[in-house]
Structure formats: structure tokens, C-alpha cells
């Protein structure tokens, strides 16, 4: 059975963009963590995670993003989330994490800072 998660990566100026597509649950969180770690290892000043292509996220996905947030604080690099679909945003709100992350509507807003 294949892993349903596909992740795109690109760099623009001092910003790295990670764009996962698919579902981020128990089985996909490990791959997602690897992609985020690889992006953060590049020590770009900012990392934008575009979640517009993510239709489902459960707590393993949230945990991976919390780890990335902790890494960004240690390395003093920026972490921005954007493009959250309503059902994914609802999970952040239930977990009270919407106030912990910097979340903007879309990639354009993320580019603007």
C-alpha cells in the first residue's frame, strides 16, 4: 500500500516552502517529519508550510508541526503555516494550537511576511 503523502519543496530568496499534498495521519507523519527536518536543516531564515493541499490532519501531523516549531525557536528561524482548509484549521483550534503558530491565509500572505 503506497503512502498517500506527496511533498513539494522550493526556495525563494531567504524562504523555504514545503507544500504537502494528501492526508497527514499516523502513517504519513513520519515522512512529513523527514521533509520538514530536511527543510529546517538548510537553516533558511524562514520556512513556510503551505497546507492548502492537506485535506485531513490528525494529532501525529500536529505533533510533527509542534516539533518543527520547537526547532524553529531553537534555531531562531521563522515558521509560518498557510492555506489551512476549514477542517484542518478546526483541528488546530480544538488543540488550541492556532494561537501558538503563525498562521496566514495563503502563500501570498506568507511571502509578505
Amino acid at each position: 500500500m503506497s503512502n498517500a503523502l506527496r511533498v513539494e519543496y522550493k526556495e525563494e530568496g531567504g524562504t523555504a516552502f514545503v507544500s504537502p499534498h494528501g492526508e497527514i495521519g499516523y502513517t504519513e507523519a513520519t515522512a512529513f517529519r523527514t521533509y520538514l527536518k530536511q527543510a529546517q536543516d538548510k537553516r533558511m531564515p524562514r520556512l513556510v508550510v503551505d497546507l492548502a493541499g492537506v485535506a485531513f490532519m490528525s494529532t501525529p501531523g500536529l505533533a510533527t508541526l509542534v516539533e518543527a516549531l520547537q526547532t524553529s525557536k531553537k534555531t531562531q528561524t521563522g515558521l509560518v503555516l498557510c492555506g489551512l482548509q476549514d477542517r484542518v484549521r478546526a483541528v488546530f483550534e480544538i488543540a488550541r494550537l492556532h494561537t501558538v503558530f503563525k498562521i496566514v491565509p495563503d502563500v501570498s500572505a506568507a511571502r509578505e511576511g
Partner: protein
Amino acid sequence: MSGMESQAPILLEMQSNPQYLSGARDLVSGVSKRLGFSDMACSQIALALDEALCNVIRHGYKRALDRPIWVRIAPIDASGGPSEPTEAAGVRIVIEDDAEQVDPVQIKGRALEDIRPGGLGVHIIREVMDEAIYERRETGRGMRLTMVKLKVSKKAARNDSGRGSDVA
């Protein structure tokens, strides 16, 4: 059968392999949609099921891939009794496993103020469902989680009347 003995409109028997989680989510989401839940409510029900199954796999079965999990899905009326799908006021989802039993009181999520990875699953289940009750199975092995989601949430009604929101 070592799992559920009673009849159910829908009974899913699955192995504790995380690769099957998406299929279980799709099943409960599709049934919930047919029972008349909104898209957001269907998503919440699927999320609660996913979190519950993840907890069984990780904590109950210690990530073993081939242990049994039984999921029973039933439409219910407003009083919690059986209902025809076309007249359902809500849905009851019962999840049973054959893992080592634990004290249900000990099953609880971490404080949300403690920002760290993990420990959110039980909190999410209790938040999105109207009821979530953990029990030991009568067989002497395994746990049972009974979750209820109503189309007109008790939580919403209680919030509207200012009497608090935590039913689960």
C-alpha cells in the same frame, strides 16, 4: 468470536495496521454523511475515530500490526436508542480491542497549555464528540470506547444556555 457479540448495522473488523486507518475514516465519514451530518461534522467524526484507533494501535497493541479491532457503527434516535438511518438523530460508534486492560480513569489527554508533541488524541475525541466513554470489556481482556455524535449537539445547546460545554 472474541470481539463484539451483539448485532450491529455496520461492523468493521480490522487489523491494527495503520495503513487501514484511512479506509476506516472513509467508512465512518460516508455513513455519517448518509445519516445527514454536515461535512464538518463528518470530518470531526472521522477524526475522532482515527484518534481512537491510533490510541489502540500505539498504546493498546504497542504498534503490533496484526491484532484485532472491532468498530460498530449505528444510527441512534435522540434518546440513544436504535434508529432507522433516515430518521437518525445521531450516530454511535463503539470501538473494542483485545489489548491489556487499563483503568479508564487513567485515559486522559495532557493539559493543552503544555505545548509539546503528542497527548492530544483523547482531548480531541472528547472535544468533537458529544459522549466518549471508556470501559473495560466484560471478557476480562480489552477496552471499549463508546462515542456518540448528535446532529444537534448537546454541547452546542449547553453553550447556548451558558451552562458549560463538556459532556464527555
